[in-house]
């Protein structure tokens, strides 16, 4: 079985973490800001660490937030889709 591959952060996107665990992405090409909630910050950081399995990201989220594994996995999926659409991450 091959490992699922995940998109990687676009090097033209700057991540800034805020004190409350949320974050902001600034796309340096378009100059759009994107706010990340705390779970999306975990997704971004996992991508930056080159985590290749969305299940691992979902597990990180369930260990930190009161959310079941299935919901977390769905959220990770949808965050990744949105990030791809906005050019914040690049396809694997």
């Amino acid at each position: 079985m091959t490992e699922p591959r995940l998109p990687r952060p676009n090097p033209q996107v700057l991540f800034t973490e805020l004190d409350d665990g949320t974050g902001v992405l600034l796309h340096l090409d378009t100059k759009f800001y994107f706010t990340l909630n705390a779970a999306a910050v975990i997704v971004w950081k996992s991508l930056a660490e080159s985590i290749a399995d969305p299940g691992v990201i979902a597990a990180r989220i369930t260990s930190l937030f009161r959310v079941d594994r299935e919901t977390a996995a769905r959220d990770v999926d949808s965050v990744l889709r949105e990030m791809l659409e906005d050019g914040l991450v690049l396809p694997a």
Partner: protein
Amino acid sequence: MAVNWIAFHLTDRCQLDCQHCLRDPGQKPKDLSLATIRKVLAEAKRLYRTRQVALTGGEPTLHPELEGVLDAIVEHDFTWHIVTNGRRFEQLLGLLRDGPARRERLTAVNLSLDGADETTHDGIRGKGSFRDVMKAVTLCTAHGLPFTLQMVLHARNVHQIEAFGLMAAQLGAARASLSMLQTTGTHHDEALYLPPHAWQDAQHRIERLSAALTMPVTMPEGFYREQIFHVCEAMKSESLHVDVEGRLNLCCQHAGVPSEGPPRDVAADLATTSLLEAHGRLLGIIHETQAAKLAAMARGPLGAWDHFPCNWCMKHFDKPHWTDEGAGGPSAQRERWRGAWAKKVTLPVVR
């Protein structure tokens, strides 16, 4: 006419080594004393009822007693703005978080950005600096702090005026400011030089940009003036500048810049002289400067560079200034010890 703001040149320390910098990285860095700042704040409040303070440098966030400076500003009931390269922005945010009154009185963060893209900016200011500024911009936006982007124009970035303005507007800046490069007195002047007509072109482009954008676009003192007899903000005493040695001097553009002979733009040491007396002496310097300009106009004819007030001023004070041939006046003894562009490398300086 009123003394609207006081600028404190807080420190000569800086982590960067910009090509257009006027400070001398070969010197042991100095910091403006907190005692002098407190004295000047008290005197300015009492004498003029001044409200605004500007913190500049060097990199002002590197002042070892920045927290005390901010508290003095609060205590003396001033508002403030800061000019920064953004590299220590998170530390500055920490000071604002720890002291809400400091934050309430902050009117703007002026971030130095010398290009509309990473390659141009980092080529002038050093690798990683563009992203530092972008991070600071993001933090300002996230925390609701008004920020200005300010660019020093020269031959290496003048093509980016419009892109810079657009970028500032897109990022949500409160203002974009584009200023004219002052002669550094170093070998960099050769590569950064623009002739008078190129500066006038740049000025027209900035004016057009200002008309096209809803965000204010400003040009600090220095650009071409049709009327040679022009009285700047500093010469109207609308702003007073305290240099890093704690002396009242003519303006920030003069501070730290080498001159032939003893500097004539310094009024007095504010640690030992009252602000009132120092201001009186400064008016003497201003009067002498304006009289000298009138005399030069009467003698005539004046050249194209004499229509640029700061250039005329620097020349008058025997400081580095632009001429038709490039840079004139004394050279600055500040060979850069870092950076690939340094022609000569002197001993490293511990900062």
